[in-house]
């Protein structure tokens, strides 16, 4: 389902945006601050601040559907992962390490593109950090261009 190239892409310096939906099908949005894949790549853990994105996480109990888009900001390479939530728990020390490593990777990339430290500080946080564990079911190419929207085969 997820090859090693995709796994290392989502663990890299990529912008991470997530969508859930409530019982009335109203969507909710949030930003992720670091992702780690399981060794067999069947599970993804994306770190999210609950204090910043309460609506997003309120919808994400076990079994809930989820969309996560990963974008490399310097070349617009983009993948959207659809998945099903396995668990949502407060982040532990290892999870916080994932987020802090992510902070270190994404800051210089955005700074080089002209994004100011002040702008980044609005969302690049480790406050009230939660680990969202989900099982990817589909991966779509969303890089702008002719392949946009293509579903990747297993």
């Amino acid at each position, binding site marked *: 389902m997820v090859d090693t190239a995709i796994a290392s892409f989502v663990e890299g310096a990529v912008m991470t*945006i997530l*969508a859930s939906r409530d019982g009335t099908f109203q*969507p909710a949005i949030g930003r992720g601050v670091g992702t780690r894949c399981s060794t067999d790549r069947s599970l993804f853990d994306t770190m999210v601040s609950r204090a910043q994105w309460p609506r997003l996480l309120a919808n994400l109990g076990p079994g809930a559907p989820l969309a996560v888009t990963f974008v490399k900001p310097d070349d617009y390479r983009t993948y959207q992962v659809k998945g099903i939530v396995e668990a949502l728990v407060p982040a532990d020390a290892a999870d916080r390490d994932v987020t802090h490593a992510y902070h270190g990777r994404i800051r210089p990339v955005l700074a080089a593109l002209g994004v100011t430290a002040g702008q980044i500080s609005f969302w690049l946080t480790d406050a009230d950090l939660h680990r969202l564990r989900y099982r990817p079911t589909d991966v779509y190419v969303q890089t702008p261009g002719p392949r946009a929207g293509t579903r990747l085969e297993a």
Partner: protein
Amino acid sequence: MESPRLRDLAACFEGVIPSIIATVDADGMPNISYLSHVHFVDDDHVALSNQYFAKTAANVRSRGTATVLVVDGRSGAQFLLDLAFVRSFAEGDLFDRMSDHLDAMSAQQGMSGMMALRGADLYRVRHCEAVPALNPPEAEPVHEGPDAAGRLSAAARLALAIGAQGDADTAIDLALDGIAEGMGFRHLMVLIPDPGGRRLSVLTSRGYETLGIGSEVTMGDGVIGIAAARRRPLRLSDLSRGRRYAAAVKEGTAIPGAGVPYPGLDAPLSQIAIPMISRGQLVGVLFAEAPLRFAFTREDEDALVLIAGQLAACIALDELAAPDAPAPAPPPAEAGAGPRIRVRYFPFDDSIFIDDDYLIRGVAGRLLHHFLRAHLATGQRDFTNREIRLAPDLRLPDVKDNLETRLILLRRRLDERNAPIRLQRPERGRLRLDLTGRPEIEVVT
């Protein structure tokens, strides 16, 4: 927390930081993607340029709802808007302005013509909320100069002063000096279109190393060219994303080989161009830029539109009202004395060189050639606007309404070059050729 009003989120709607759109498909699966630009319509509505992916479009059509995240391009503050789809549209003022902005941004990012606006969607905003900022950043330094109210009242005073001024030449300087001093916008130009509508020439400027009078930009290219070609104001608030393309944009905007360096900033972050329209005709473009992000607000745009309108009316009225002075005085005795002034004239583009230095081309070049030829033939130094308009070799009928601005351009260019040939204006409607030598014209075909 109280819901923010959309009008107070102006810096979210400038297309600076990409927005995000989330939708839900018929099976209940969410979808999320980036979106270039959310446009403010009014306190209850926004419009999205319909550039998004097929899946997003299908989800909106099936459920009629979406949620977007918009980001204040200045501070980075984030806001969530829950939207209900109203209708699509593909024409009208809002559509045109969205299209202009998209074209200017894509040109600035080196992707001209690759992202034409096909359609736009209008949404009602059902709910708006701020995303909590957990570690609020230090405030970014604010711009120096007058505040918003001060800029507006300075603009109003300036519009009045321009309206009271009958002389176009004076009004242009009055406008630029007034904008610089009263509104704090330091880098300014006025440009005029050529008769064929292919180029615009810088008539004068403020705040650059050189005035750049006579330098040219292509109609339809860049912020100035797009605003002129479409006759609508255009404002970009943060060009830093396309920084690496900025040099290329400057190269691509200014016409190479025309001989006069274009005076623009090397790394502008904000630009605004306002077409000057009178009686439906494009008279010129008023342009401002700044090395700061968000230097020009929507209200500044409105204020500059008023100034540009007054300036356009003043120039147009000057053309109509310029009195035709009585017959020229006999040629003064000193005409023809002094050192040789070597003038080369290239009829194919009406360009003029003085002593190997490019001076100007187009109608202004044709005018100077006419004056010099008449002077050499009869010793004439004084010319009236009436005889200029009627001179068959000038082929002016199609541009007679813009004669005055072309004479202003020519006169200012000669002054800027410190040329041995100058034009004086002893009174309205009359020009006098001032020579510090004896011109010799070589026509190069």
